[in-house]
């Protein structure tokens, strides 16, 4: 067993950045003499082979099919490649696409398997994957004793996207026959957020009921602007029409998917709000109520008035 296979993902024929992040992760654990192959399934895979020839990729395996996402087909491609090439490692960007084929592939082929992997390394030649557990409260190192092939899904925005031209060969692979159980009906673009990108923001300043009045909201828009943050909010603020719904973080709002610093001011921290942000590594909570739920998930907490803290922050930006 040797070599690594990366499954590249595309939407409407455009490669996702997470595909290039997976290439970087693969290169990081590549052993001498190993090959790194990237698989792309698309309507015109040849046009995507060039862009995928980056950062140490030895081979691009092009599978001509539809641009529509078809998990059964990717499963069939992977089954074939596992049978023919016996790779030691398969890497897939973590996300809804991976969920629909990676666990099934791993289970059917008896592979070592872990999801949402944050880091990869070799220890004495053995692969060790790191992932979070217990709602991001602990990091777990996972090894795969006795497994000849390991399949991992990789958390996005953790690895740098691969760059730098490579001289990869391109191999065409006929799409295998697959028992297709699902049908792609069409793309539904997300609601127009007017340029507000809560899922993509790395730094979010979020306000809740503590802001008290619509007139006070502008002050935090201004502060977020100064700090280089994206302003988010809890549900009552969006319900009142004080901020666009695109800024709402939480169960019925947006997920702060790529956030690394979340400053919650005057947010009590309802379960619904936490759904959208509790995974963030650095949460700073400001609330006058020391028993507010938000403090139970915050790394740093300030029991104090959000307006006083905001005024102090303004002195620093």
């Amino acid at each position, binding site marked *: 067993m040797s070599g690594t296979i990366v499954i590249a993902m595309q939407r409407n024929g455009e490669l996702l950045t997470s595909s290039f992040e997976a290439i970087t992760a693969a290169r990081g654990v590549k052993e001498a003499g190993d090959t790194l192959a990237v698989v792309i399934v698309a309507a015109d895979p040849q046009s995507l082979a060039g862009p995928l020839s980056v950062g140490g990729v030895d081979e691009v395996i092009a599978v001509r099919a539809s641009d529509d996402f078809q998990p059964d087909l990717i499963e069939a491609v992977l089954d074939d490649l596992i049978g023919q090439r016996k790779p030691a490692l398969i890497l897939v960007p973590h996300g809804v696409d991976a969920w629909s084929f990676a666990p099934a592939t791993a289970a059917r082929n008896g592979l070592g398997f872990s999801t949402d992997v944050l880091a990869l390394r070799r220890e004495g030649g053995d692969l060790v994957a790191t992932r979070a557990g217990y709602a991001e409260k602990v990091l777990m190192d996972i090894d795969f004793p006795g497994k000849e092939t390991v399949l991992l899904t990789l958390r996005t925005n953790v690895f740098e996207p691969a760059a730098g031209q490579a001289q990869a060969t391109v191999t065409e692979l006929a799409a295998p026959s697959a028992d297709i159980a699902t049908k792609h009906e069409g793309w539904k673009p997300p*609601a*127009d957020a*007017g340029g507000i990108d809560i899922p993509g923001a790395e730094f979010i300043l979020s306000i809740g009921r503590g802001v008290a009045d*619509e*007139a006070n909201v*502008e*002050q935090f*828009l*201004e502060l977020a*602007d100064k700090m280089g943050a994206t302003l988010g909010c809890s*549900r009552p603020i*969006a*319900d009142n*029409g004080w901020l*666009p*719904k*695109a800024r*709402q973080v939480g169960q*019925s*709002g947006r997920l702060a998917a790529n956030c690394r610093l979340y400053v919650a001011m005057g947010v009590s921290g309802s379960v*619904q709000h936490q759904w959208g942000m509790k995974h963030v590594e650095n949460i700073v909570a400001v609330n006058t*109520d*020391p*028993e507010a739920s938000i403090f139970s998930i915050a790394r740093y907490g300030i*029991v104090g008035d959000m307006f006083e803290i905001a*005024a102090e922050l*303004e*002195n620093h930006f």
Partner: protein
Amino acid sequence: MMAAATDIRGAGGQDALVARVVAGGDLYAALGLYAGAGPGARAALEPVIFASPRQKLITAAAAFAPASLLDRLAADAGEALALRLAKNPATPTSALRRLLGRCGDARMARCLAAHDHADAAILDELASHPAVEVRRAVAGNPAAPAGVIGRLAADDDGLIRRAAAAAPEADAGTLARLWQTGDDGVRAEIAAHPNCPADLLAAALRSTDARLRRRLASNPSLGAAELEQLLADPDDGVRAAAVRNPTVSDAGIDTGREPSARIRRLIARRHQLGADVIARLAADPDPWVRRWIARHPDLPAGLLARLAQDDDPGIRRSVARNPASPPDLLVRLAQDTAPWVQAGVALREDAPPEAVGALLSSRDRDVLGALGRNPATPATTLKAIAASGDADVRRSIAFNRAAPQAAVLLLAADPYPLNRAMIVGHPLLDDGALADLLDDPDPQVRFAAARRLGRRAASFPPRNSDGKPGDDE
């Protein structure tokens, strides 16, 4: 399952409702009814609420639990129950007093010391607690009386002294003593304190430490001369704090000479501004200054019209939210290219029909959500909004007192639990729909429905013996 319907109107209405909730054995419905129930009904509901130790723990931690129930729980609370009660912001003073007598560990004492309902006697006792975190909590409690603060000002702990210096009840004598012994942080708090003695204000004014002058500038007891000096301070942060000071008169603010956009933004936030200052700020090169002044209620129509054409949609939105904006301007802004500006008009109950009409074909979720809240929106549109595919848009109906009953009933059957919980308070939700919600799978919906039904039942006058409404109905 409970019975499908409960007639709450009439003499036996509340009894029937209590009987139904007792038969169902649901904790949350029982909690909802308890606050408005009489002694007999409470006695019937308590076995449901106190059915198990777990339910007692849930109740003790619930901020929505009635104070009288928390008081009952405090009477024989064990350690775990007592801690939850001490943390619960709804726990009344009487219950806190009971818990104080059984205050075993410092954790619970700290919760009592920080509690909003802790009275002077509780705080006085806890101010002598051996654990520093308890004394810190007492010092940080705004209800701590002057005598307690005076004692804590002599504490060895620096954080306690700083909290004492910021305590609302700290008197001039305590502040003067703290000034002598405190560090920079303590002195900064004293400089901002309304009870700060005049000689210490003067010393702070002369200080070379800008952080101290910043805190001083926020002091509401400063005189006009001191504020004038601070408004001319070379440090931006000091001038910013002075502009925020509510006692600053407009005469002391000179926008013409203010070089910092940050300070001009703060000036534009102020309510009391002269016409010439408003005009100057409306033409400010900084967009945030214009954004703030565009909300000013004294902005004349001409300037409003000019700002309504600003390139920055945030400024146009501010005009749309300005209560002084005339109807013709709202009509124009309802046709703005930016949906967020349109949503600002859609929120306005005083928007003319022509403006509302211009928004009815919008598909933007913020515009639809705003229309959903607006009593001026036509009933047909509100019904369509209640059937929207967007749960957040549908919820807006719950905030609209003029929503037609068909829309209200749609939201009462909404698949999203929060939407059902929100519509429970709507005046047009009838007893039958409310009674159905007593069986809702979501606890917050059952609680809200029971509370509302309980209040309604209590508000109906008794019926005559023949079952017909009484004379007052």
